[in-house]
C-alpha cells in the first residue's frame, strides 16, 4: 500500500491539471485492467464482465488543492490565487513548488516580525510567491495559469501512518488501486468501473460527468474524512486506525450504506460513522442525483490536518478499506438491485 500511495502522491494533478495522473494509473493497473480517460480528464478503469447486467462504480477524486499563477510583477514575484479550499494559515512561510516549464521552488512572501502587525488578516487576495529568480527568468519559465503546490515530503510516522500533502484524495485513489489488485485474479460477478475523477476540490465536476456517462446501478465514493484530533468534534470524526468512516446521510442510499456496514462487520472492521444532516461534501452528492438518481454510498479514510501540507492517514485503514471494497464487489453489491 505504501508503494502505491507513494507513486500516486506526485506533485502534479492540482484541480484542472489532472492529465499527468493517467500515466501513473496506467502503470499501476494497466497490466490487468482497461484504462481510459473521458473528455474532462476523468480516468476510467474497467474490470469484470462488461456485459453483466449489474454495474458498480467506485469513485475517488484524484485532484489536489493548490494555487494558480495569476500575475507576475516587475521584480519577478508571482501573484497567486487558491484552487480549492486551501487553508490560508498554512501558506505563511511555506516552501512551494511552481509547476512550470521547469519546477521552481519558491516561498510564500511573509512580513518579518518587525513589520507585521498582530491583527494582520490573511487574505486570498494577497498571496505572493518569491522564487528568488529575476523577472526575466520567471517570465521565461512561468506562464499565467500554471499551478503551484505547497511542498512536503512523503514521511512515515509511527504506527503505519504517513504524512504528506495531497493525501486528500490520493489516499482514496490508492485504495481503489489496491482494490483492483485484490480483484485481478478473482471472479467479478458484475461490471466494475473505478473512476479517478477530476475537479472535486473546485466543483465536484468529474464525478457528476462520469456518473452520467457510465450510468451505473450503484456507486460508492471513497474520500478522506476528519480524523479525531484536537478541536475536531467526536461526532464529525473517526479514529485513525478504526478502518474507515461510513457516512450516513439523507442523500445516500440506505441499501448501499447497509451493505457496506454488513460487509465491514463480516470482515471484523471496527469502523466509525459520520452522520450528515444534509449533503456529504463529497462526490456522493453529485453522483447520487445524476441522471434519474444513482444509489450511492460513501466511505472515508480518517485523515488529520485536512487541506494542509501535513495531512496524515493510516496505511492500515487504507488496506482495510480496500479489502472492504473488494469484498463488496465480490458479493455483487446490493442484492436484487
Amino acid at each position, binding site marked *: 500500500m505504501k508503494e502505491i500511495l507513494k507513486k500516486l502522491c506526485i506533485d502534479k494533478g492540482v484541480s484542472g491539471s489532472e492529465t499527468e495522473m493517467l500515466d501513473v494509473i496506467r502503470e499501476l493497473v494497466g497490466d490487468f485492467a482497461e484504462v481510459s480517460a473521458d473528455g474532462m480528464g476523468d480516468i476510467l478503469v474497467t474490470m469484470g464482465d462488461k456485459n453483466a447486467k449489474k454495474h458498480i462504480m467506485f469513485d475517488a477524486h484524484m485532484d489536489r488543492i493548490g494555487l494558480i499563477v495569476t500575475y507576475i510583477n516587475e521584480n519577478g514575484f508571482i501573484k497567486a490565487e487558491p484552487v480549492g479550499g486551501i487553508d490560508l494559515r498554512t501558506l505563511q*512561510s511555506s516552501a512551494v513548488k511552481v509547476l512550470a516549464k521547469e519546477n521552481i521552488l519558491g516561498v510564500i512572501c511573509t512580513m518579518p516580525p518587525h513589520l507585521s502587525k498582530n491583527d494582520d488578516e490573511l487574505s486570498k487576495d494577497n498571496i505572493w510567491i518569491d522564487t*528568488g529568480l529575476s523577472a526575466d527568468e520567471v517570465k521565461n519559465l512561468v506562464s499565467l495559469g500554471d499551478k503551484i503546490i505547497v511542498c512536503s515530503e512523503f514521511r512515515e510516522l509511527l504506527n503505519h501512518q504517513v504524512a504528506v500533502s495531497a493525501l486528500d484524495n490520493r489516499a482514496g485513489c490508492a485504495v481503489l488501486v489496491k482494490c483492483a489488485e485484490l480483484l485481478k485474479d478473482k471472479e467479478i460477478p458484475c461490471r466494475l468501473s473505478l473512476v479517478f475523477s477530476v475537479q472535486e476540490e473546485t466543483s465536484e465536476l468529474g464525478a457528476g460527468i462520469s456518473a452520467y456517462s457510465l450510468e451505473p446501478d450503484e456507486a460508492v465514493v471513497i474520500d478522506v474524512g476528519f480524523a479525531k484530533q484536537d478541536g475536531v468534534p467526536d461526532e464529525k470524526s473517526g479514529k485513525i486506525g478504526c478502518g474507515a468512516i461510513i457516512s450516513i446521510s439523507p442523500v445516500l442510499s440506505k441499501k448501499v450504506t447497509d451493505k457496506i456496514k454488513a460487509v465491514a462487520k463480516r470482515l471484523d472492521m471496527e469502523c466509525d460513522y459520520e452522520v450528515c444532516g444534509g449533503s456529504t461534501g463529497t462526490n456522493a452528492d453529485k453522483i447520487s442525483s445524476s441522471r434519474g438518481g444513482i444509489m450511492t454510498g460513501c466511505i472515508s479514510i480518517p485523515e488529520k490536518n485536512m487541506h494542509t501540507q501535513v495531512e496524515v492517514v493510516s496505511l492500515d485503514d487504507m488496506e482495510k478499506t480496500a479489502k472492504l471494497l473488494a469484498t463488496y464487489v465480490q458479493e455483487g453489491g446490493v442484492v436484487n438491485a
Partner: protein
Amino acid sequence: MLDYQLLEKLCKADSPSGFEEEVREIVISEIKDYADKITVDNMGNVLVFRKGMKTPKKKLLLSAHMDEVGLIVTDIKSDGTLKFAEVGGINDTAVFAKQVKVGKNKISGVINAKPTHLLSADERKKVPSKDSLCIDIGAKDKEDAEKYVSLGDMVTFDSPYENKNGRIISKAIDDRFGCLVLIEMIKSELPYDMYFSFVVQEEIGLRGAKAAAYTINPDYAIVIEATTAADVPFAEDEKRVCLVGGGAVVSFMDRSTMYDKEFYQIARSANAKTQTKTMIAGGNDAGAIHCSRGGVRTIAVSVPCRYIHSSSSLASVDDMESVFEVVKYTAERILSNVE
C-alpha cells in the same frame, strides 16, 4: 566561488541552540587540517587560531554562530502528541502545519492543524498561537510516544534545500552561511594571524559569543551573519530594510550595537557590492562581543536573507560572494593599520 556544497551540508545539519553538535562536527572536520589551534570550550564554542603571513600587534576575531532557531519538547500529552516551546525567535506563522524532525533519531512529525472546514470565518484569517499547537508523531498514546521521545528533545524543520539560478532556499542560512565564510577564511592563506569563533546559543541571547569573546580577548571583531531582508511586494521603501541582490549588508547600528565608524567605512569601501540597512532592526553576536571585557571595536557583515527564522529562507549567491569579499578586505585593512 565559495563551497556551496559545504553550505548545503551545513544548512541541512540539525542544530538548534543548545544542540550544536552536528554543526560543530562538520566545522571541526573541515578545518582540522588548516587551523593551528582548535579548542572546544565549556559551552561548546569552537575557538580557532590560524597563523597568517604576519603577526599583527592587535588581535582580530571573526565570529559566526552555529545554532539555528528551532523547537524543544516540553510535554508528552496523554494522546501521544507533544507540546513544545520555541528555541529562539520563531513566529507562529513559521511553525503552523510544518513537517518537523524530533530528537537525535530524527523521528518525523507534523505540527497539527485543525481542518479549515471546521473553523469560523474569523479563525480562518489568523494563524493560531503556537502555544495551542502540538506535534504529532503518530504515537498511539503517551506510553507509545515515550518510547521514541524524551522531554527536552530538539525539534527542527524538515524542509527542502535548493540552489538554483544563483539563489538558495533553505532553513538555517542564518547562520550556517557565517560558518561557511569562517571555514573558507581558515582554509585560505591569511595575510595576518587571526582568531575565529564558531559560537553556540546566539538565538537565545548571544550567549556563546559572550564567553568566546572573553576567552579570546580580541581588540577587534567582525561578525558574519544573515540578516532580515523585507523586500517583498507589500513592503515599500525603507521598510524593506535591505535588499536581496543588493550586496553585503554593513550596518551602522542595529538593536544591539552601535558599530565602529572606521570599520564601517572600511567595509563599505571594499571592492564588492555593499548596502546598509534602512531601518534600525535586528541584532547579532556583535551585541555581546563589542562590550566584552574592556570593549572590542566591532563590525558586522551580513548576507540579506528573506523569511529568516523560518523553514525556508531565501538568499542570493552573489550577495554571499560579496560578503566574503568584504570580510576578507576588512580583516586585512584593519590589521594592516596596526602592523
